[in-house]
């Protein structure tokens, strides 16, 4: 990041902060940057910008930078930050909101996370359940890591944990309706 004139970015990004507040219930102006969220974050070591820094970026109007950040995809969603935040900012919800907004804006930095969510939700949409084996196999092929976790396959197989065929619910139409109705109401790809 080069030098940025914050007096301009703050004003021009008010819409985004308003949306975070209205749609996700996250008011970033409450954050006084104490850093308790990031001190206890078990995934902070894997982030370029910690959740405290991400909050500051959005306060400062660096919206594109925050949405295209890889750090939001390193968040494990454990919610430790939200239980400890003294200002009830709900930093976990904030990170989740950035992931949803990044998808809408076409700025997802972690293609693997995007692929994982696609495959997971497709499995649910088609069969009503998650078929673990099918999803992991597709993920490995499409992410170009054919033998990822392959060393665990024989063990899983002998333990009876690899069900080759998906378990399908009877009323798969109900799934199709839920996904279609959500899209009708909310728009965008779900």
């Amino acid at each position, binding site marked *: 990041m080069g030098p940025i004139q914050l007096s301009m970015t703050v004003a021009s990004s008010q819409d985004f902060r308003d949306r975070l507040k209205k749609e996700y219930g996250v008011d970033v102006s409450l954050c006084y940057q104490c850093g308790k969220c990031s001190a206890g974050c078990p995934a902070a070591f894997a982030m370029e910008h910690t959740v405290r820094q991400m909050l500051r970026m959005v306060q400062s109007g660096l919206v594109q930078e925050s949405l295209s950040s890889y750090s939001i995809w390193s968040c494990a969603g454990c919610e430790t930050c939200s239980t400890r935040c003294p200002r009830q900012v709900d930093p976990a919800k904030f990170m989740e909101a950035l992931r949803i907004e990044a998808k809408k804006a076409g700025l997802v930095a972690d293609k693997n996370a995007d692929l994982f969510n696609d495959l997971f939700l497709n499995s649910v949409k088609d069969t009503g359940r998650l078929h*673990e084996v099918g999803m992991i196999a597709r993920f490995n092929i499409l992410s170009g890591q054919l033998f990822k976790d392959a060393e665990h396959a024989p063990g899983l197989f002998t333990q009876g944990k690899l069900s080759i065929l998906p378990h399908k619910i009877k009323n798969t139409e109900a799934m199709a309706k839920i996904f279609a109705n959500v899209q009708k109401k909310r728009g965008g790809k779900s």
Partner: protein
Amino acid sequence: MKYGLYPGCSLNGTGIEYGLSTKAVAQKLGIDFVEIPDWNCCGASSAHNRNHLLSVALPARNLALAEQHGIDQIAVPCAACYQRMKAAEVALRDEATRQEVGEVIEMNVEGKSRTRALVEVFANDLDADFLSSVVVRPLSGLKVASYYGCLLVKPAQVAIDSPENPMIMDKLMAALGATPVEWSYKTECCGGSLAITRPEASLGMTANVLKYAKLAGADCIVTPCPLCTSNLDMRQKAAEGLLGMELGLPIYYFTELMGVALGLEMSQLGLTKHFVEATSLLKNSPAAQ
């Protein structure tokens, strides 16, 4: 006692021993679990990372099915499913949300059925005297690290116990005769949700949980979550490599240890379906004698 049961997808796959031990223990204790007919996936982290409405609607169909079948309380073994089902139950308390979600699932949902974590049902609903009366093989001398993970105790709106120092499973283990160890990683995330997309980051988190259980003097770890278990069990060898230390910690579902204490066969409980060998410790402990 009669409960609805929402097994979740993992119990047919990677968490198969959780399903086996849950059913065996329930039968032994005379608890009647009725599986919610035609239940669907809760959407897990993928739904709520994509679309809030979808993340409420998917579990809401299960809640609506439970209502249709007159199920007041739904026992949920998987911690991830529990969190999503409970979050939907909480969201449905709002009338506007209930209306909108009803339109999405095209079913009437009143939000009357209560979602309960399976560990709550076994630890809170059973009379303590009754439980001690059915323990035939107390787990004496077995030092267990109770590992709760994230999703049963966070966030506050759905938590079954304290997010920092939960005790519900420690107390259950003590009731079975085991010795819970004190340790500070009870609710530290194992990185389960990153295991597929960010395996290196996830492994570092898994390794920390295992390391501190070992340093606290535990013989084994006990969990209520299939995602934590497959992470801690299947990836333990890789964690040993990363840490440069030997761990050898069997990872048990709390239902497996309950089953052993109740005198059930280890194979019936799925104890032979582990990566880290899990039967010797229980055979060698005074519990077996």
